[in-house]
């Protein structure tokens, strides 16, 4: 029983990162109608960014967030300007297909680049306080992972506020809902796209940082995290950042439960199966409202 509770707690902690990873993907898909399947690779890059800041300059990973997030913002802006900005010119149906293909080409290139630069080895950040654990009754909560969960929650809450209060945040939401109406009210939707993509990349970078300190990274985690993000996005639907976070927690717990029931190696499978089931049962696609 305690073992199960322990697993669930660990699942929750990981789920927070799933939520953060998904939030970025959800934002980009919701606004640009573009499915960036290289999202996981952006997470991977964020992880390496934090890793090298730590390994070469001794920067504490949580402090590194202050560097990784702006860096990722710039990277996202660059990727939009140089790549995805062209994809959005196509009408919506072709756009999604093209984004899949382009994203996949980008993922391949980033993966190859990462292997070339940093080898395929697993890496993890071990800080001095790495082993610290908060004990609540029989349950041990690794402090780093707890802190990561709180950071993830804070970032998502921050994003939510940004979208709700900031003038351009509202413009982003408006563009997501009806880009033509947004144009009519004077919103430069290309700027909204750029901001959304940059923000999405920033969230990915942050998620990667948290993964590198609480878990481990390697060039291959890209596909894995893209799929996790996709699963959470499908579960949550579009439109609510907080809802995405909760769905992430749910996936984390679901994985923990399935690992307890079927054994460790199958924990990955349950998420994918849930994903397929939800996908097939909602034929209107990921985010439509139910057909009127």
């Amino acid at each position: 029983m305690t073992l199960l509770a322990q697993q669930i707690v660990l699942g929750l902690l990981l789920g927070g990162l799933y939520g953060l990873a998904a939030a970025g993907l959800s934002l980009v898909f919701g606004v640009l109608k573009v499915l960036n399947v290289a999202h996981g690779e952006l997470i991977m890059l964020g992880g390496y960014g934090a890793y090298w800041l730590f390994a070469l300059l001794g920067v504490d990973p949580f402090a590194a967030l202050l560097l990784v997030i702006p860096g990722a913002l710039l990277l996202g802006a660059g990727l939009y300007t140089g790549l995805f900005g062209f994809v959005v010119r196509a009408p919506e149906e072709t756009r999604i297909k093209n984004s899949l293909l382009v994203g996949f080409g980008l993922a391949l290139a980033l993966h190859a680049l990462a292997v070339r630069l940093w080898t395929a080895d697993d890496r993890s950040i071990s800080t001095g306080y790495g082993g610290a654990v908060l004990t609540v009754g029989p349950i041990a909560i690794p402090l780093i992972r707890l802190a990561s969960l709180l950071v993830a929650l804070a970032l998502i809450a921050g994003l939510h506020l940004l979208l709700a209060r900031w003038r351009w945040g509202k413009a982003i939401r408006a563009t997501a809902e009806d880009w033509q109406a947004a144009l009519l009210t004077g919103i430069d939707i290309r700027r909204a796209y750029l901001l959304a993509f940059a923000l999405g990349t920033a969230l990915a970078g942050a998620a990667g940082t948290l993964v590198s300190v609480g878990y481990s990274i390697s060039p291959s985690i890209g596909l894995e995290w893209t799929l996790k993000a996709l699963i959470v996005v499908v579960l949550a639907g579009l439109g609510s950042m907080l809802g995405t976070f909760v769905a992430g927690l749910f996936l984390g717990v679901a994985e923990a439960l399935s690992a307890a029931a079927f054994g460790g190696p199958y924990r990955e499978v349950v998420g994918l199966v849930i994903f397929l089931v939800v996908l097939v049962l909602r034929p209107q696609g990921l985010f439509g409202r139910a057909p009127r």
Partner: protein
Amino acid sequence: MLELRGLEAGYGDVPALSGVTLQVGAGEIVALLGPNGAGKSTLLGCVSGLVRPRAGTISWEGENLLAIAPHLIVERGLAVVPEGRRLFGSMTVEDNLELGAFSPRARAARRESLERVFALFPDLRTRRRQVVRALSGGQQQMVAVGRALMASPRLLMLDEPSLGIAPQLVRAILDALVEINRAGVAILLVEQNVRAALTLAHRAYILEGGRVVGEGAGADLLGDPHVRRAYLGPLAAGA
């Protein structure tokens, strides 16, 4: 102020507009009438920048509107209330109105604009924090008009504002248009409700099959036999 000359537009092989020429002068209310599919919405689409015409010119106060990016057209002083309103349903009344004043020029005047909108549509002031999706059709239409007004336009274009709205609310909206016009804003009104439109408008154009087939003062057209037969129906009771 607004001048369309020889405008041609279409979707694929289907021509929606053929050689359309019309003007809207300062302070005028101009109605654009015609059956479904006549090209009225396409015309507004061309002016607002959402539809690219194949030929012809659109000039606004002497400037070539076709050379301007769609999101910058609002800055020039034109605002659109699109067909079906196209509000941001998941956002509040206040947010929708605020977004209407997104362009720099409008943004500077947004506090006054907001007051003016609430003065015109007092109902919206009480509902300012409600999510637009939850409002009735008529109230949504008010938000849509309000949103366009927030842009401090010199020309307001409306596409079928009375469609699907309860009659008493239609009355309220049309009265509001008169007031808006009195404050100096020109209006281009695409309307199915021909009688209401013609009583309101100074001038009107009739569009059929993508061409301008009639033009004249509002009152004159009301009495025109073709108009009466085609648009006011055999049971039109009185003038």
